[in-house]
């Protein structure tokens, strides 16, 4: 369920980074205010525990496949939402840095989908609502199952929304939902079973570990959670509708923001004008892909392949792009080899290599 950078647009990634960053800052403050100073090592070791627990698998009866603990819910149950969110965020960051599991731009999305949703929606609204104070009874176990399933369903739905809003995958909304939700129903059941199994064992072996005093952020009020969810939904809805309005690509503003192309186009004198002329002379893909070749006057909006009649496909331009692209890759690799040789020689001179 980790989203990769290659499927996230900067606008969506940035929005989710802001959401995740805000949650982390909020939780960091809560944890800092907490009187428990054993929380720092506890959170660190629990993050490591999640990694280690993912090494252990159990067989799912009748399917021949196996499942393992995801970790979001069990961390929330043991540490409380705020500390748990920080642990999940750190686990996701380590996964992004060391395993390329989820990317840096997508990190915000992943923290929201796998951290904020279990910690701030599934736990307070579902688990605590269903379980009440009955933690280690069958009612508590049922609440854990439901919370795990709801958390993963919402997380999977968030993945669909974020991928759609990014507009990089062609998958239509309905098909993507039908693809993701059933898979994550199964994953949610597995997550719930694993969480319940581990917690039941602890309830038998050392019940006092489950009744840890003053979990941080447990006192998060229902109203503030609802307000937070509403604000996030409003922001996301705004971003999504904005994207829908400039469909199909909806990337123009970020492109303009990054490249300043609007200004480049608008001022035609001096160096800029020359550069723009150079660009027109050389760049057969003037920033909007292959299809604008026939219609230089209507660049950004006619972005859909259907908007371009068939004869506009030009073999010549395709060829120059292909040659240029391949040559650039080859040059970059050669340069890398050269730099590496240079670095090695430099290291040899100073006696390090």
């Amino acid at each position, binding site marked *: 369920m980790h989203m990769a950078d*290659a499927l996230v647009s900067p606008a969506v990634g940035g929005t989710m980074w802001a959401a995740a960053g805000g949650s982390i800052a909020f939780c960091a403050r809560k944890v800092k205010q907490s009187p428990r100073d054993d929380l720092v090592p506890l959170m660190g070791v629990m993050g490591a525990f999640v990694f280690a627990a993912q090494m252990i698998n159990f067989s799912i009866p009748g399917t021949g496949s196996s499942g393992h603990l995801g970790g979001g819910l069990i961390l929330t149950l043991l540490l409380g939402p705020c500390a748990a969110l920080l642990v999940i965020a*750190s686990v996701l960051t380590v996964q*992004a840095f060391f395993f390329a599991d989820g990317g840096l731009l997508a990190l915000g999305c992943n923290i929201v989908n796998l951290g904020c949703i279990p910690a701030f929606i599934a736990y307070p609204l579902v688990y605590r609502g269903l379980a009440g104070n009955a933690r280690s009874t069958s009612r508590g176990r049922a609440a854990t199952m439901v919370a795990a399933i709801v958390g993963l369903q919402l997380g999977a739905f968030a993945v669909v929304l974020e991928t759609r809003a990014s507009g990089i995958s062609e998958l239509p909304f309905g098909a993507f939902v039908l693809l993701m939700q059933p898979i994550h129903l199964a994953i949610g059941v597995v997550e719930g079973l694993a969480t319940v*199994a581990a917690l039941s064992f602890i309830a038998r072996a050392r019940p006092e570990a489950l009744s840890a005093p003053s979990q941080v952020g447990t006192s998060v009020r229902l109203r503030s959670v609802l307000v937070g969810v509403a604000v996030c939904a409003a922001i996301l809805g705004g971003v999504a509708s904005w994207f829908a309005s400039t469909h199909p690509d909806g990337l123009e503003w970020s492109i303009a923001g990054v490249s300043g192309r609007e200004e480049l186009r608008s001022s035609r004198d001096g160096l800029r004008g020359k550069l723009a002329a150079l660009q027109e002379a050389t760049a057969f893909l003037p*920033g909007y892909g292959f299809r604008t070749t026939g219609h230089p006057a209507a660049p950004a909006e006619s972005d859909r392949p259907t908007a371009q009649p068939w004869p506009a496909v030009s073999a010549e331009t395709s060829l120059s792009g*292909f040659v240029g*692209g391949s040559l650039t890759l080859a040059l970059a690799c050669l*340069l890398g080899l050269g730099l590496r040789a240079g670095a090695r020689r430099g290291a040899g001179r100073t006696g390090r290599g």
Partner: protein
Amino acid sequence: MSGGVLGLGDLVEIGRLDDLGRLDTPMHRVDARAKAIVVLAFIIVVMSFPRYEISAITPFILCPVAFISLGRIPVRHIARKILVALPFALVIGLFNPILDRQPIVAFGPHTVAGGWVSFASILLRFALTVGAALALVACTGLYRLGAGLGQLGVPRVFVVQLLFCHRYLFVVADEGGRMMRGVALRSDGKRTLSLRVYGSLVGHLLLRSLDRAERVHRAMLARGFTGEIRVMRCSAFRGSDWLFVCGWLAFFAAARAWNLAAALGCLLTGGAA
């Protein structure tokens, strides 16, 4: 966190990346903040291209290549990690050729559908963004990277959490690995566990982790921990770091504004715009 299952081999890999982070090369000597900013800007700019773009993205490979070569990172190491992480992007991206069949590129008489172009674009971007992120860690090491993030304003509690999690990863995972070896020796060749056995194994691992956290906490108290977290400030932002950041950002801006690869192609083939 429903990602791949962590095996002992992965821990060796993490250790390998940590070892690389301790090298001393020109790229390792650049301030962690400078590298983090450049890599983040790189990913944002690469992902800001429209979906059918390929050739304009190719010049961006210069950035990971420079990191990897100047940092003397083994290319095979990074390439293998990229391949291991590929499936998700591959599966989602493969729907593009199925759903988008409008031809948009022609090579002589042959045409290529838009879906294949955007699919290739996704794969190229995937390799670039993942490669850049891995190169960042390999050229910096998590400790320096964490300290740098702290200096950039990331809450200190989170930075400490990141470093603690990374530090105890090996310890706790070792414990998990020993448990699994014990199970394997006693289970007569059966590979997977029943849910009941699984529960007690993971529960045991959890209890051991809690115990370890308590021991760590006592050790910290014994060394004067008062609840205040201290992260060592390790480096200053020098002039060369400014140059590094500004140079790369200028390159990204230029490569984003103009299709450098197509310009090269036009120059060589004599093709027109």
